[in-house]
């Protein structure tokens, strides 16, 4: 009986692992430091959670784990540290248009040097209405590829999200004649040529990193006698198969916040909520709608490169347990990891938000000795007033941030997680109630374990009579992509449909975004 699910989240600091039973309850959890090679931490967390589970007299634990879901920062780190990136031949199909801004124009020089094997803008691509911009010049494609040493190819055609014929033909040519992996832009981003191209090139540069992660995961599972099917978590809070992840590694970027949001809400038993993750230095807020993270409308920068990748809409504010309190204000600096030496409650001499919360009786479960230490530190000083005004300011900042994310709605609950969660008050304006779920410290791994598989389509369709059919086709395509990502064909549903009318065009047209998602296939 494969009734158990194992979720793993590799974060910047810790690698967490959880096991959920058939009812979706957390029955084991473990937290280990993330190691520089990442796989060491992954193995340690896996061993720890399996050991805990086996210590509970559960029968045949390893045989019962049917699926393993991994959320990881491998890809993000590789880009940020310019490490392990592959060399990419960058092809844009768009000449004679688009030549005023060549590929990678806005990339930081070191990242461009690490990634680009050569770039060319060749004749091809389409107009907004589907006509060819120029006949596709396959010889120009060959000329670039014959002259470069590349491990992969990135292909971006003008208007390919609406008309992908030229991208497909180049993809076939590269596979057939050069045997190189190809990253095609229509699978990666939406309209907005430069941002989509950037994401497509990053994707191609990450093939090696993706292979390393999937190998490490598969090996770690095999070594531990786990026959489970592995999946990787992606930026919208859904899963993909390893085969899919191998083609779209850039999709794993942003899976951390997405998993955190979904995990926190799941542990609280709600589908619509504002999630607040209070750390030592900063607080992240996100919104969950219908079980999925609300996506950011703005372009997202990764490692200094602007992409139009869809990422969770996260608001980060400089407020955490270690934020320094002063007579003239609060923060934005924090004592960070030195909190255990510097905060008043730990016998230090720097007043922090943790001290301010403690003075007001807001305490974590394991706050042994804090009020005592604080009383000693405060005797005969003016610090009491500083702490009071700091806490009032913190409450204002949180209420303000919640209001920004709530978009005027005050009927949703607020789910509070993270090591600094205790500093928040019991009531927060703009939220119906405040929930502090159990197991919140491993919310990311839980989010990975409960994720669905999804597919999406973003294109331009004619408005008017043919619109309805065209939208049906877009929905069908989104469902097919969800199935390709691992979803059970019988359980896939369209979860998001967005239509935006376009201005200044010859024929009325709408931009359509469709997303389908469903539980994983057995």
């Amino acid at each position, binding site marked *: 009986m494969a009734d158990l699910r194992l979720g793993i989240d590799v974060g910047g600091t810790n690698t967490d692992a959880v096991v959920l039973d058939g009812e979706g309850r957390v029955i084991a959890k473990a937290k280990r430091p993330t190691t520089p090679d990442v796989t060491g931490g992954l193995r340690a967390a896996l061993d720890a959670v399996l050991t805990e589970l086996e210590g509970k007299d559960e029968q045949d634990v390893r045989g019962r784990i049917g699926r393993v879901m991994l959320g990881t920062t491998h890809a993000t780190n590789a880009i940020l540290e310019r490490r392990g990136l592959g060399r990419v031949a960058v092809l844009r199909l768009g000449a004679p248009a688009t030549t*005023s801004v060549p590929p990678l124009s806005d990339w930081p020089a070191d990242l461009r040097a690490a990634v680009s094997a050569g770039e060319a803008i060749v004749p091809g691509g389409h*107009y907004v209405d589907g006509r060819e911009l120029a006949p596709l010049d396959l010889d120009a494609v060959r000329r670039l590829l014959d002259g470069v040493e590349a491990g992969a190819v990135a292909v971006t055609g003008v208007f390919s999200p609406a008309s992908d014929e030229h991208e497909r033909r180049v993809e076939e040519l590269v596979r057939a004649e050069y045997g190189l992996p190809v990253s095609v832009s229509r699978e990666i981003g939406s309209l907005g040529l430069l941002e989509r191209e950037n994401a497509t090139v990053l994707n191609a540069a990450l093939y090696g990193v993706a292979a390393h992660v999937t190998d490490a995961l598969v090996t770690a599972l095999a070594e531990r006698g786990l026959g489970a099917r592995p999946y990787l978590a992606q930026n919208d809070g859904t899963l993909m198969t390893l085969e899919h992840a191998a083609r779209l590694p850039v999709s794993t970027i942003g899976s951390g916040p997405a998993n955190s949001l979904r995990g926190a809400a799941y542990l609280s038993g709600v589908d619509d909520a504002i999630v607040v993750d209070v750390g030592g230095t900063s607080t992240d807020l996100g919104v969950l709608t219908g079980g999925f993270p609300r996506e950011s409308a703005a372009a997202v920068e990764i490692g200094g490169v602007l992409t139009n990748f869809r990422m969770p809409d996260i608001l980060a504010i400089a407020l955490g347990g270690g934020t320094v309190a002063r007579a003239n204000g609060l923060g934005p600096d924090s004592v960070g990891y030195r909190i255990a030496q510097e905060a008043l409650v730990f016998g230090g001499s720097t007043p922090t938000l943790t001290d301010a919360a403690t003075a007001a009786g807001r305490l974590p479960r394991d706050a042994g000795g804090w009020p005592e230490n604080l009383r000693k530190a405060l005797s005969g000083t003016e610090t009491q007033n500083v702490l009071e005004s700091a806490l009032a300011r913190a409450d204002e900042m949180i209420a303000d941030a919640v209001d920004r994310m709530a978009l005027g709605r005050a009927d949703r609950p607020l789910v509070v997680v993270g090591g600094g969660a205790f500093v928040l008050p019991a009531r927060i304006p703009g939220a119906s109630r405040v929930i502090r779920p159990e197991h919140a410290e491993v919310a990311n791994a839980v989010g990975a374990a409960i994720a669905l598989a999804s597919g999406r389509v973003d294109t331009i369709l004619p408005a008017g009579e043919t619109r309805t059919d065209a939208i049906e086709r877009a929905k069908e395509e989104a469902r097919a992509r969800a199935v390709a990502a691992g979803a059970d064909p019988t359980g896939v549903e369209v979860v998001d449909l967005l239509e935006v009318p376009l201005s200044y065009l010859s024929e009325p047209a709408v931009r359509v975004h469709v997303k389908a998602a469903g539980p994983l296939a057995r």
Partner: protein
Amino acid sequence: MNIDVNDIPALARGCAVLGTGGGGDVRTGSLAAMRAIREYGEVPLVKLADLPDDALVVPLSGIGAPTVSHEMIHGEDEPARIAEEVERIFGRPPAAIMSSEIGGSNGVAPVAWAAQLGLPLLDADGMGRAFPEVQMVSMYVAGLPADLVIMSDVAGNVVTIRPVDGLWSERLARAVCVAAGSHALMADYVLTAARAGGAVIEGTVTGALEIGRSTEGAADPLGALRERLGASQLITGKLTDVERRTTGGFVRGTAVIEGTGDDRGRRLSLELQNENLVAVEDGRVRAMVPDLITVVDTETAAAVQTESLRYGQRVTVLAWPCDPLWRTPKGLETAGPRAFGYDLDYVPVEELTHG
């Protein structure tokens, strides 16, 4: 002076402020400008007085659908084909490039076009801000005949139009633009330096640069920007409602800002049509087109485009006087409140805010 790569970010910020919410995203134009300067060299910025009387000035602008210009970016040869056509028609090459519209993307991109052509950029433009329609330019207001439009598209086509008036100019240019894939480069009102005097708005490139630089490293960016613009601060607050609808090819809408801090209890609504056109508080107009109304981020003083307005943003609304040319009867007829369908008699912003 010469415009170099390091000037582009400040120029882009200034153009965004002068875009009054519209005029298109400045980012692609900035990248094109930086690339062209690196490739072809710095761009001399010249004053009208520096040019001989018979020097030809070519006002350029990109026209089309924003969604398209974000995807099908300009080709590098488009300006050269317009310059060749100008030379064919006038018998001599152009002497300088001018931005038709300093507000938004058309304020920055001309730096790229000038660099590609190896020509100087005239420190002037045709609007002093951004406007949605082709005939809303100073040359039209000054009474210059709208008898020549040259368009160049990504495919290499060049179309020369000899319209009978400004309305035909707009109508025909739009039709060509659509056929060209909803994106083209356009020269409108090619003129000599002698005729440009009084028909263009001078000093606007320098002005945009200074606006962009005013907030650079400022301790109080909002205060610095307000002072630089000589603007009235209509309200500082929170965006509480944005309603948009697409009608007649334009995005129209209303945005509501509720005051915070010293402005608590006040409520300003902004009427939008690509640009911010009218600001109303308690049924009283506080500023109206053609005066400039820009929404900026209260903290950074960066301009916020109408399409990026979102609930919850902390913004400040600034309004300041337009160029005197727009306040003439012909100027108001062309781009006053009634030209946008608002039944309002124009009152200058300085009278509305101090009256």
